[in-house]
């Protein structure tokens, strides 16, 4: 049996190769993702472990949950003396880590998404960086910066620059250049090291620090020291060994990256695999149908049904194995490619350890490759086993139709209904977001599968519509192509289905993104009635000084500063709390009120709160209830609910209180954004420029008009959208292989017909055209069904998410582009098969056995 399988594969090398490629690409994506995330995890482990080399134990303040964005909790500096007094401590040093960007030649240095750190200098053995040149700062006003910053901005020892702190830009001089664990720059992040007194002054942390690094006396292990410190220090601090602390920090960093990256990339990998599986199923179905005589022959010479079935499964196994092995290698290539992409978009890139051949990943690649291929081939293999021996002798023998094939439409209908039900339940349930997403994804999958099964009924109609312009062209190729496509609607539908999945997902994403963009822009237009918006770059908080700077600019009438923090509310979970100036808020905000009016905003300083409707629903809060809230530092307060508003986009996931009560409980002082209204009759752009000048001491702040801000958000959604398109494109490419495969197979099937056509006068180019048109009709069908399905699915999702503010908008132009892409895919897929068909010698073709 094995020899039979291998001989068969050798004979059909091209088909086997195309089939293997379909799975291979999916395996590569999955493998590449796992390799990349492992590289990232290991890199950060190395970084943090080596950074913590001199630190045996670290003492940090105890927090219940993460406070406001960017804030790092503090310890009193006096704890350092306390620590030094504990048995076993050799040395202890205060540590401060803050965020502050360098300002070079008046220009603010902030790479996309990468933070800019400011560290207090620590005495050896604690200093985590390695001095590359110069010396560490000693006097006030001196700093050391990372090599990457020096290289990319052309500064060096002796250069003067600024540090953007909450109180403005501070001038400093560079005295040394450092590297961090042998890496000069991590994704564009910058490091500035300054004397601790300077750092405390800049960040208003006099007498406060963020953590304490401790080294142990010889003979004392870090674990023992940690235990003594924990015993000797109050409950307000956490004590961990250097290794534990490094592991925790590494995990936090890699989680932030990988928890987003891994599921996203894997999702696309799985989509690619699903499409590949589909192609395997289709290909094997066709070849079984073509090899009826051969399979019948096997049975006549005594092979059992099971042996015939295993011969097909065996073929799938070999193909899957090859796909797994090559896919594994390709996966490493894919990971390498991704690293290069990151390098291109983030200066310095993301740190990655060298790629390792991990047996775990190799095993996954093989299991996935073999598993998907074999499972996909099971049904065709089963059908092969049902070929009767008589098929060897008879022309035109057929596989007896399976008993369940009659019920296919009913089963498909049930699946579709189940899928829609799952989607709806996922949208309306209150559960955890990831669970809901999974349920909806499963539901969508069922709907796709059901529509795919039913699509064969649409083939004749769609083939006629899409083929209509082709048939009008002179020559018989168009008509022949359409009839060829309609000959076996099930097979055409199955081939088209692979493309349907890819294009359908693309269409879904496009419509959904359009709705997302529209909801954001609508929200900006309606809620923020102001004319100017001031934000920090990369959504970091802006210094409080910007409020007065903006308000005092001539032409500005009102400024609403949105200061936010996080609170834990009894019985309602975590919330975002917005502290607004009541008067300005009442005048400048246009909230959509479910209960109440903007007058309530004016009364917020009396200790009341207005709650966002989604949060009110999930937390069971109504007007008249009292919110008992605790901040991240433990301070508690209560607010009476006087109104409920609807705003899923901006003041969302929580409630608004007045500035004064806010400041009593929450530590955050720096607003996330400012909304400014201008005096009537003034030119917005002129006032915007004036505000920009006033904000010069705060380079982190950017001012834009409403319209400019809207466009910027639109563009950001677009860039994510294009990234998704690129990832989905992989599925489209794979489905191309499916079409090529099917075409090659059906040409083999029709060799005698092709010979006859050539004999009665069809030229080679007419034949090529016929193949091309057939391919275009097939891919066109896949595109049309995919687009309709994608839009319909997006409609369901948008409907369910309507109260989150997502609207349903159809990007018509993009849909047309997608259809054109599907046609182009058909043309591309036809190149190889058309050439093969045209190369046939009519005589050989006529006598093909």
């Amino acid at each position, binding site marked *: 049996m094995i020899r039979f399988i291998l001989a068969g594969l050798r004979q059909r090398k091209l088909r086997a190769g195309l089939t293997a490629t379909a799975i291979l690409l999916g395996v590569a994506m999955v493998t590449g993702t796992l390799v990349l995330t492992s590289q990232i995890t290991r890199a950060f482990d190395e970084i943090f472990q080596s950074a913590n080399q001199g630190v045996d134990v670290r003492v940090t303040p105890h927090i219940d949950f993460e406070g406001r964005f960017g804030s790092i909790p503090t310890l009193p500096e006096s704890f350092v003396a306390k620590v030094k007094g504990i048995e076993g401590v050799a040395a202890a040093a205060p540590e401060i880590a803050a965020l502050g960007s360098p300002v070079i030649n008046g220009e603010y240095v902030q790479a996309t998404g990468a933070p800019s750190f400011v560290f207090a200098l620590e005495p050896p053995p604690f200093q985590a960086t390695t001095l590359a040149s110069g010396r560490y700062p000693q006097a006030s006003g001196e700093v050391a910066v990372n090599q990457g910053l020096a290289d990319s901005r052309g500064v060096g020892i002796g250069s003067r620059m600024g540090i953007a702190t909450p109180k403005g830009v501070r001038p400093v001089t560079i005295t040394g250049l450092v590297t961090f664990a042998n890496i000069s720059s991590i994704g564009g992040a910058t490091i500035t090291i300054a004397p601790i007194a300077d750092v405390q002054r800049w960040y208003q942390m006099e007498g406060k620090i963020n953590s304490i690094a401790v080294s142990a006396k010889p003979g004392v292990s870090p674990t023992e020291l940690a235990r003594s410190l924990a015993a000797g220090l109050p409950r307000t601090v956490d004590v961990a060994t250097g290794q534990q602390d490094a592991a925790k920090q590494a995990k936090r960093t890699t989680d932030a990256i990988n928890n987003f990256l891994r599921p996203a990339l894997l999702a696309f990998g799985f989509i690619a695999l699903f499409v590949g599986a589909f192609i395997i199923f289709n290909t094997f179905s066709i070849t079984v149908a073509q090899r009826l005589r051969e399979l019948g022959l096997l049975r006549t010479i005594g092979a059992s049904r099971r042996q015939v079935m295993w011969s097909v499964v065996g073929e799938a196994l070999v193909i899957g194995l090859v796909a797994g092995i090559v896919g594994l290698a390709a996966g490493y290539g894919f990971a390498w490619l991704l690293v290069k992409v990151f390098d291109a978009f983030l200066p310095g890139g993301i740190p990655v350890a060298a790629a390792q051949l991990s047996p775990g990943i190799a095993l996954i690649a093989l299991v996935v490759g073999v598993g998907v291929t074999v499972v996909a081939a099971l049904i065709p293999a089963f059908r092969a086993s049902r070929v009767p021996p008589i098929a060897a002798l008879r022309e035109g023998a057929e596989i007896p139709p399976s008993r369940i094939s009659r019920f296919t439409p009913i089963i498909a209908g049930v699946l579709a209904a189940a899928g829609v039900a799952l989607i709806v339940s996922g949208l309306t349930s209150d559960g955890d977001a990831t669970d809901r997403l999974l349920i909806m994804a499963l539901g969508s999958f069922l709907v796709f599968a059901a529509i795919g099964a039913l699509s064969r009924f649409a083939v004749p109609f769609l083939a006629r519509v899409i083929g209509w312009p082709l048939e009008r062209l*002179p*020559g*018989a190729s168009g*008509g*022949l192509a359409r*009839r*060829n496509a*309609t*000959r076996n609607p099930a097979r055409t539908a199955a081939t088209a289905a692979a493309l349907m999945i890819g294009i359908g997902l693309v269409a879904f994403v496009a419509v959904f993104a359009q709705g997302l963009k529209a909801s954001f822009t609508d929200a900006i237009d309606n809620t923020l009635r102001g004319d100017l918006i001031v934000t920090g770059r990369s959504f970091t908080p802006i210094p409080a000084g910007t409020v007065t700077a903006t308000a005092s600019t001539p032409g500005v009438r009102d400024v609403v500063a949105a200061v936010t923090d996080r609170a834990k509310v009894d019985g309602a979970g975590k919330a975002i709390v917005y502290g607004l100036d009541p008067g300005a808020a009442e005048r400048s905000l246009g909230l959509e009120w479910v209960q109440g009016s903007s007058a309530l905003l004016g009364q917020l300083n009396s200790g009341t709160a207005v709650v966002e409707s989604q949060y009110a629903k999930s937390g069971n809060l109504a007007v008249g209830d009292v919110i008992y809230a605790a901040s991240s530092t433990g301070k508690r307060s209560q607010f009476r609910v006087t109104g409920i508003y609807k705003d899923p986009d901006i003041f969302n996931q929580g409630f608004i209180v007045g500035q004064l009560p806010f400041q009593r409980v929450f530590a955050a002082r720096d607003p996330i954004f400012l909304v400014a209204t201008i005096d009537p009759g003034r030119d917005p752009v002129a006032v915007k420029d004036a505000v920009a000048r006033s904000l010069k001491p705060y380079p982190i702040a950017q001012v834009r008009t409403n319209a400019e801000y809207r466009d910027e958000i639109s563009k950001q959604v677009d860039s994510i959208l294009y990234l998704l398109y690129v990832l989905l494109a992989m599925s489209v490419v794979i489905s191309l292989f499916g079409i090529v495969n099917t075409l090659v197979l059906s040409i083999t099937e029709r060799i*005698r*017909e092709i010979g*006859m*056509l*050539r*004999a*009665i*006068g*069809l*030229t*080679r*180019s*007419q034949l090529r055209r016929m193949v091309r048109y057939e391919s275009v009709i097939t891919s066109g069908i896949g595109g049309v069904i995919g687009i309709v399905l994608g839009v319909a699915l997006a409609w369901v999702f948008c409907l369910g998410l309507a109260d989150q503010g997502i609207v349903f908008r159809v990007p018509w132009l993009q849909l047309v582009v997608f259809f054109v892409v599907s046609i182009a895919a058909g043309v591309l897929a036809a190149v190889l098969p058309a050439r093969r068909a045209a190369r046939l010698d*009519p*005589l050989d073709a*006529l006598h093909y056995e």
Partner: protein
Amino acid sequence: MSTNGDGIAVHAEGLGRRYGEGEAAIDALADVTVSFPKGQFAAVMGPSGSGKSTLLHCLAGLDRPTSGEVTIDGTALSGLSDRDLTVLRRTAIGFIFQSFNLLPMLTARENVELPLRIAGRLDSARVDATLADVALGDRATHRPAELSGGQQQRVAIARALVSHPTVIFADEPTGNLDSTSGHEILNLLRRAVDEGGRTVVMVTHDPRAAVVADRVLMLSDGRVVMDRPGMTADEIYDAVRTLDSP
């Protein structure tokens, strides 16, 4: 209708077809010179391996001879590109195979129209007339799967006739048919020659089919060993028997 003066539909001059090289070379055809005048029904016979099918393929332009020349209605095939050859097959040559003549997903009518459509010159009236000639008017909308073997071959003949070709080549047209259907087919071909003025060159191994022809050629080992007009069935049987026994 002849378009050149000397009324020769197909002429082969010194035709040779060699397979392989050197010592392993086989001459399927060796130095065959033969002429088929217009309006003649010729049968080509011979045992298997005699080269009769090879001769037909070379004459029809489906195979290129290794030596010699084929001329159809005055046009030499050797000088033609593949494209020109193909066009010639549309307009000047009709071909009938033993089996698998028709496209299964087209109706009988659509199958007959095919050569005209390929040329971009559909003439419905002519199609109707041709279908009537082969007495298939009532089955024109049926697909091949719904037609008997004899009816399918009639469709094939109609298709071969529809472009009014200079010559019709038939490769064992009755090979897969029972005797009644076979007779029908041969009668149709005969009528195409007598009433339609066509030229037919038919390869067959069946003496009962060959007797319908005006002239019978016998091939053996790639050469023409007999070429006689107006043979009776018995004469043909004797000739075949002589050839079959060495």
